[in-house]
């Protein structure tokens, strides 16, 4: 007997469990497999690293879709990477909640500015944000850059703009940050690693 997917749902809804139907020889054909397919089976698995503590547990991230160019996947599940020699598939209460961090209601989605003396955020474009910040930086650097100290030693530093760097950023970000900041002459620089 053939049962369509829709009929199958109706039968189930009438109070019979799927497995007992199968035992009675009342097995729907191909369509049933689709009903039972796990979302994970159609997701793409990506190896990544938990961003919390320095155990740096390996994680497997499951994203809907196949990462084709025009598809925007969403992260639907994260679990420990069983091949990782350190965590061997485990995650702690912090790491087990990673998905809620990614989908936090407090994720920022666009650039904003709070103008001097005002009490609210205002959405702005990236281009405006970059222009305004770069202008602030140049004005401050040109006004306060110190080429030589009182003893006439060349020091080429800019201390009046500071930077606190994330230790949750990857090495490549850290490297580009330090390279860029040193070129600008910034010395008021520190990281979470200290505190």
């Amino acid at each position: 007997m053939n049962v369509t997917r829709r009929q199958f749902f109706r039968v189930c809804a009438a109070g019979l469990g799927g497995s007992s139907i199968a035992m009675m020889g009342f097995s729907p054909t191909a369509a049933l497999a689709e009903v039972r397919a796990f979302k994970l089976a159609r997701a793409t698995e990506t190896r990544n690293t938990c961003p919390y503590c320095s155990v740096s547990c390996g994680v497997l991230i499951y994203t809907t879709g196949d990462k084709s160019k025009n598809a925007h996947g969403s992260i639907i599940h994260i679990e420990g990477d069983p091949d990782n020699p350190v965590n061997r598939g485990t995650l702690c209460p912090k790491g087990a909640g990673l998905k809620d961090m990614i989908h936090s209601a407090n994720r920022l989605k666009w650039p904003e500015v709070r103008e001097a003396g005002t009490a609210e955020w205002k959405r702005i474009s990236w281009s405006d944000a970059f222009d305004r910040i770069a202008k602030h930086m140049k004005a401050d650097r040109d006004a306060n850059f110190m080429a030589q100290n009182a003893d006439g030693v060349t020091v080429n530093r800019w201390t009046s703009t500071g930077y606190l760097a994330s230790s949750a950023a990857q090495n490549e970000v850290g490297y580009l940050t330090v390279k860029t900041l040193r070129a600008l002459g910034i010395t008021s620089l520190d990281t979470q690693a200290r505190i």
Partner: protein
Amino acid sequence: MTNHWVDIKNADLVFVMGGNPAEAHPCGFKWVIEAKKTRKAKLVVVDPRFNRTASVADYYAPIRAGTDIAFLGGVIHYLLANDKLHHDYVKAYTNASFLVDPAFKFEDGIFSGYSEEKRSYGKDTWKYQLGEDGFAKVDDTLQDPQCVFQLMKAHYARYTPDVVSKITGTPKDAFLKVCEYIADTAAPNKTMTNLYALGWTEHSVGSQNIRCMAIIQLLLGNMGMAGGGINALRGHANVQGITDFALYAQNLPGYMGAPGDADKDLATYLEKRTPKALRPGQMNFPQNFPKWFVSLQKAWWGDAATKETDFAYAYLPKLAGASDTLSIFNAMFEGKINGFFCQGFNPLASVPNKRKVGDALAKLKYLVIMDPLATDTSEFWKPHGEFNEVDPGKIQTEVFRLPTSLFAENAGTFTNSGRVVQWRWKAAEAPGDSKDDTEILAALFLRLKDMYAKDGGAFPDPILKLTWAYTQPAKPSPEELLREINGKALADVLDPKDPTKVLAKAGEQLGTFAHLRDDGTTTCGNWIYCGVWSQAGNNSARRDNSDPSGLGQTLNWGFAWPVNRRILYNRASADLAGKPWDPKRTVLKWAGDKWVGNDVPDMRPDAKPEENVMPFIMNPEGVGRLFSRELMAEGPFPEHYEPFETPLDANPLHPKNPKATSNPAARVYKGDMEAFGKAKDFPYVATTYRLTEHFHYWTKQSLINAIMQPEQFVEIGEELAKEKGIVAGDKVKVRSNRGFIRAVAVVTKRIKALEVDGRKVHTVGIPIHFGFKGATKPGFLTNTLTPFVGDANVQTPEYKAFLVNIEKA
């Protein structure tokens, strides 16, 4: 970590002090359990709280927060007094036999050379006696009264079990029991691993806490051994990597000291940082400093960095003096900073004395937040009830908030605390208009470069000439950046022993920092990472977890710096002849013509044992330091000083010298000294800590974590609760001299009152994690309470020991 996470399973004793890995690093802590199960290892915990690590320990001892040096100094005394030393190791592999300047003194809590006015030391006497050959003098019998061994013995003779107990509040029998466990590992084939975290670093004597353990591990011969070492557990997933890349002012990538005002030219700078060997025949690896530095300058300024331009030395800013989170916020507070960037960093929550930090931010002209989340700092100007009482109309700071991608939404490498660099892959796009940090940096940099090219301005050269050869200049890829970090040959690199042999051809990625040159023919963005992306490709992406030795080394998983070495100082795991101290856990051995084993040798591969090349190759001495010369701010031997807010009237070791009450070399700013509370007003010791369900101020934004731990609480012992009439669940107000917080009281048996110097001392435990932004119940920032003072060497704030009062709210 000198060792790595999986290596913990090789220990005979796991000693945890200044950390709580069962809750803060649960998935790494499994290797402690593994050691207990498979090696019958013991776990010993010393902590102010009976925490969850203590709950599975073989032995637990309580301690008053901020007295670790008294405890560990007592351990050193116990080992010396009871002759529980690994004698051959101490004699050969440490500076025990080195002779110290006779003018070096320690009197009434102060070392020679102190200036009270400057709160710092002149260190002229903190040095070895040198012979005419320029090498340090030694006495192999260890009997000379000026040798390090005898000086150390005299220094710690004061740290008797009674004195230790009087200062720390640890019962004497408990202290002695811990000593016995530790002393057992003096046997050559027994090892202790030490696990610590912020419980040791977040003190005004943090660095010296760790120095104590370095001394203990050297006396026991546990450095370089599988299952040994000193292992900082560390915080964020890439806190190790970001430290390696020197996202702080004092260093350049790879721990190269950054130039300061005294380094007027390249020659002066290099000379000061290129040490000469202090004993004959030693590797003295930092002698290669010029190769690392010139290769970095070539990576950054390419053709502009030539011999003629002193490799663009002038392009590097010279450091004026202190530059760290506390000094930067102090300068901001004084109105000396106009612009500020917070990249994935929430200083209003995580820097001590929230009121001072908020007032400082309000003096900025512009503040730029780069973060995936809406942080408390980004809204420092916004009223959030009693949690953040401010008037936006009075705050003239322009605040930009730029959304960035987070770990799942970008690719690149994290370096774990075991120094293993692991590539991770991008799993999804970031929400909305978020951008990667690299795109934001590139956009700002390219705009500035355009403006300087068009309009000129202050010293444009280092900006205009910075190398930027990325395929998409506005979007440098992590692959390109990691290749740049690794470095390459600009001309053929020849073998100095046989110039007909080419080690690396021009244009090739380098395989090791041994191939770096100081003549401008190589580039390298961080010398300790050289090899991470060699000609073989991206070694951080390797995922072969095979472990032929069974020691957990997994040499083909990712890439460990340096040169894929998993255990530092591993030459010390074998005796002078090259025979492993414990053949069952062979890390390295001498095979007649070279060093072989289960790790990359931390030794010249063909250095014959009879050449006496000692294992601590980064030290000009060649050996480990029991006496740290002039390298620490407050003395060559760690000494106990009280926290800046102490429940006692004086340092029990120096009751008559007020200069020696707290760290005499710690920096205290004007106004902050006055903001320290006194025991008569704030009688209880407070210590901050972390919960297993939360990560810093980050997971309060994650719903499931907020459900698990929804609200701020403070933890007190039953006795204090009874005294103050507080029952579990009451709302309490906790005050320090800098502010107050309100929270729910949790009354437990985990924190007990201690008998200290003839009085009873109670401790209040205060979790961090909560704030006014997030999915958790809005609350006070814990750092409203903490003091604005740091460790004398690295300025890590004293979050772990201060004074409060508590009452029913």
